[in-house]
């Protein structure tokens, strides 16, 4: 499908949550409301404090199937009737399952809000889980797993996740594998539903063109559709660092370009130096004028984009650098990135860089709270990911306090250029040997066919 050729958004993230009202719900859940009457739309998010990490070993993909099955039939509606009704109401519904949390997102034209909540309540509280629909959805999921291999970026992300977190739940994908999805039975899906869909495990969010009092009343109906039950405990422990420099080369034919991810363990939202590290990372690769972007794109033109990212979850997540140079430039680009990382870990950032990025992050916070939807999702993140209560609301104050020594101590303590994983998606016959040769002190290395499941 053709599309405009769009430049990458030149921005980075900073945030503060406010103007969201929180209420407790009977049964242990919570409600968060952010009113905005600018456009006659209402969004409803049902956030769950648990995700695919709760899938039993060998049953990976069960939670995601349970969420997707909700629109495949309820006691009162067939799958077709659900889809027809959503369209008729001018509504959309989607589900999202990640390792530590899950969500159902809905949006509807305001005049149909009541009818939309009726439908949502039926789907949540009275799912039918028809067996023929489950079989159909499993076949659909298996086809999607094959199709996902067309995306080199997705292949790189999958290989990175699997190897940075080897042996840890963060290595698993929420979708599961061909083997686990094939083996999932109706009872596994029902069990996943019973685990996650309980009152104490949810945080409800309303935003948009809805009065708070009405949101409260509708939220009680939605929560009341769920069984009583406590929140699901997080089964995930802290991941461990894997020593040495490693290379995973994902071999795919005819690649003129490579996808490269380099990194290791990063930050936890509960670290005392979390904000200091995030700020330093923004200097390194979190903005359009960052070191990585300047060296890789602006000076050399090697990659359209060059970014460094710190992922955030309940436990320590990954630090990663992402570039996508032409195959011919890939070895040099990897060498440069490792050099830049070594310099970053050894020397950190300077006062001028820190001052600049603090202005950027501080002023751009306006765009993290400029819509009701963004404010609501901050509040829900705090709730379901167990972030510190002032994670967003205290961000600006913590940002202002970050000093050069603090930023550099955080970089030195949390990041390393020694224990790093390099993932390359490219054509191995043409490139793998050159990549291996250019990584100093490379330890374990392997080539993985792009269409192989592990």
């Amino acid at each position, binding site marked *: 499908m053709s599309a405009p050729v769009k430049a990458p958004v030149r921005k980075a993230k900073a945030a503060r949550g406010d103007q969201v009202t929180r209420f407790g719900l009977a049964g242990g859940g919570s409600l968060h409301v952010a009113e905005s009457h600018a456009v006659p739309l209402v969004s409803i998010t049902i956030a769950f404090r648990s995700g695919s990490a709760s899938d039993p070993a060998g049953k990976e993909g069960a939670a995601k199937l349970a969420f997707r099955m909700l629109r495949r039939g309820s006691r009162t509606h067939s799958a077709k009737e659900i889809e027809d009704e959503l369209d008729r109401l001018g509504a959309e519904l989607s589900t999202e399952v990640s390792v530590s949390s899950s969500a159902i997102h809905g949006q509807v034209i305001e005049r149909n809000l009541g009818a939309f909540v009726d439908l949502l309540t039926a789907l949540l509280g009275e799912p039918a889980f028809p067996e023929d629909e489950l079989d159909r959805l499993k076949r659909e999921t298996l086809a999607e797993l094959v199709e996902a291999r067309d995306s080199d970026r997705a292949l790189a992300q999958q290989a990175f996740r699997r190897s940075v977190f080897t042996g840890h739940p963060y290595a698993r994908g929420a979708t599961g594998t061909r083997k686990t999805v094939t083996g999932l039975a109706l009872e596994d899906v029902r069990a996943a539903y019973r685990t996650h869909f309980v009152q104490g495990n949810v945080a409800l969010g309303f935003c948009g063109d809805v009065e708070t009092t009405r949101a409260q009343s509708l939220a009680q109906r939605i929560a009341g559709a769920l069984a009583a039950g406590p929140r699901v405990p997080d089964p995930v422990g802290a991941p461990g660092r894997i020593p040495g420099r490693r290379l995973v080369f994902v071999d795919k034919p005819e690649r003129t370009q490579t996808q490269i991810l380099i990194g290791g363990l990063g930050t936890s939202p509960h670290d005392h130096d979390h904000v200091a590290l995030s700020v330093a990372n923004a200097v390194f690769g979190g903005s359009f004028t960052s070191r990585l972007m300047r060296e890789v794109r602006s000076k050399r033109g090697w990659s359209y984009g060059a970014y460094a990212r710190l992922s955030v979850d309940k436990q320590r997540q990954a630090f990663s650098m992402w570039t996508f140079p032409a195959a011919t430039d890939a070895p040099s680009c990897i060498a440069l990135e490792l050099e830049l990382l070594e310099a970053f870990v050894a020397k950190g950032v300077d006062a001028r860089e820190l001052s600049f990025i603090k202005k950027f992050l501080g002023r751009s916070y306006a765009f993290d709270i400029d819509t009701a939807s963004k404010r609501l999702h901050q509040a829900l993140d705090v709730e379901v990911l167990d972030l510190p209560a002032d994670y967003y609301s205290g961000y600006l104050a913590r940002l202002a306090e970050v000093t050069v020594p603090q930023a550099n101590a955080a970089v030195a303590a949390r990041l390393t250029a020694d224990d790093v994983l390099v993932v390359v998606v490219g054509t191995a016959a043409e490139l793998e040997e050159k990549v291996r040769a250019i990584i100093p002190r490379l330890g374990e290395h392997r080539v993985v066919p792009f*269409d192989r499941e592990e």
Partner: protein
Amino acid sequence: MPVADIHHRIAAAVNASSKGSALVHYIGEHAFGPSKVVRYALSNGLTVLLLLDQTAPVVSYFTWFKVGSRHEKPGKTGLAHLFEHLMFNETEHLKAGEFDKKLEESGAESNAATWVDWTYYHESVPKDRLGLVIKLESDRMHNLVLRDAQVTSEKEVVANERRFRVDDDVEGAASELLYKTAFVEHSYQWPTIGWMDDIQAFTPEDCDAFYRTFYAPNNATVVVVGDFNEKRLLEQLRDAYGELSAAVIPPDDACPEPPQLEPRSIEIKKPTATEKLLVGYHGPALGDVGHAPLTLLNEVLFGGRASRLYRALVTVGEICTDLRAWVSTFADGGLYEIYATARTGKTIADIEAVLYAELARVRDEVVTADELVRAKARLELGLLQSLETMGGKAEQIGFYETVLGDPSAAFQRLEVYRRMTASDLRKAARRYIVDRGRTTIRVLPDGSATGEAEAAH
């Protein structure tokens, strides 16, 4: 006081304080849902469209130029897009890299996009930084410096962009081939990102000539949505842009596409596990009366999980994994595109059998009343979703102004949709979904990706 009088008075007050010859002219208002877009023009032809929105202390600023890949020549394809990249470089007043630094220091979000008919540049900033954006944008409209080193480096960046968008992307490669095959005369035949050989051959002189030809105030529209003071904003725009010279914009040189008299088809092989089909029918221009009914019909056929083809090919038929369709929104007639990905074990022939039967059905029979209701609700939802942010509003205003000359056309389309009957949709099907005007791109696996490696290892 009547609203028009207020804006006339504001313009008069702005002009009274002018130290130069530049004047601001109030042109009129356009209803934009419950709000109003106010139109002004500067003496040099710059169009200014303003929408006050005080829901957050931020401002969204778009600069639209009526230049895109349709204005290029064979051998020079991709110039509009390469040039968009170069606009973030050096000016007579700013060293290379300073543009982005100044915006980032202000906490701005910024980006840009180029397509067949237009190019835009966008910044969203806290409201107290609006003055900086106006200075930066007016400066690069007139004072850009194009040096060999920057052009060389940016060509390499764009070549890399092409590799990930097209050369290593199955759908991107198929889409490029579809337009190349379906159009033989019109400049929509080449991709906006350009052919690789053309990208690599550009010189600073090519870029400079393009800049002098198309980047002028009388070829641009500035759209501002957000929390601003109208008089102060107009003074700033006058001071920043007022003295820039208008240019002689060459008349549109795109050749009309002759009617396609027989189906065209191309087959390619790619390292993918499954077969893919891309179909294009010659469609209406955005401003044609047939555009709205064909868009509604597309919702009935492909819009969401309840649509006819999604059920027939994905959920119930289990032939496809992915299925999408889109009526191009171009200034001249584009394509009605349909993209389908077969599941393992299914073929393009399986897809075509179902697809063409359903397309024949909407030429023969009218859609049901319920299908029409659902399609209208889906399009209404889509429009409202596009207006949730200031940037979204500014983009809608600028897009419709640039392509149709009417910043509020999005809402007028909604009214048109509401009036549409099932008979209107059938007429659109009969007019546009015709076999002789069809182009198909068939993507076949080249055998390197079987999807069975798991078993092999």
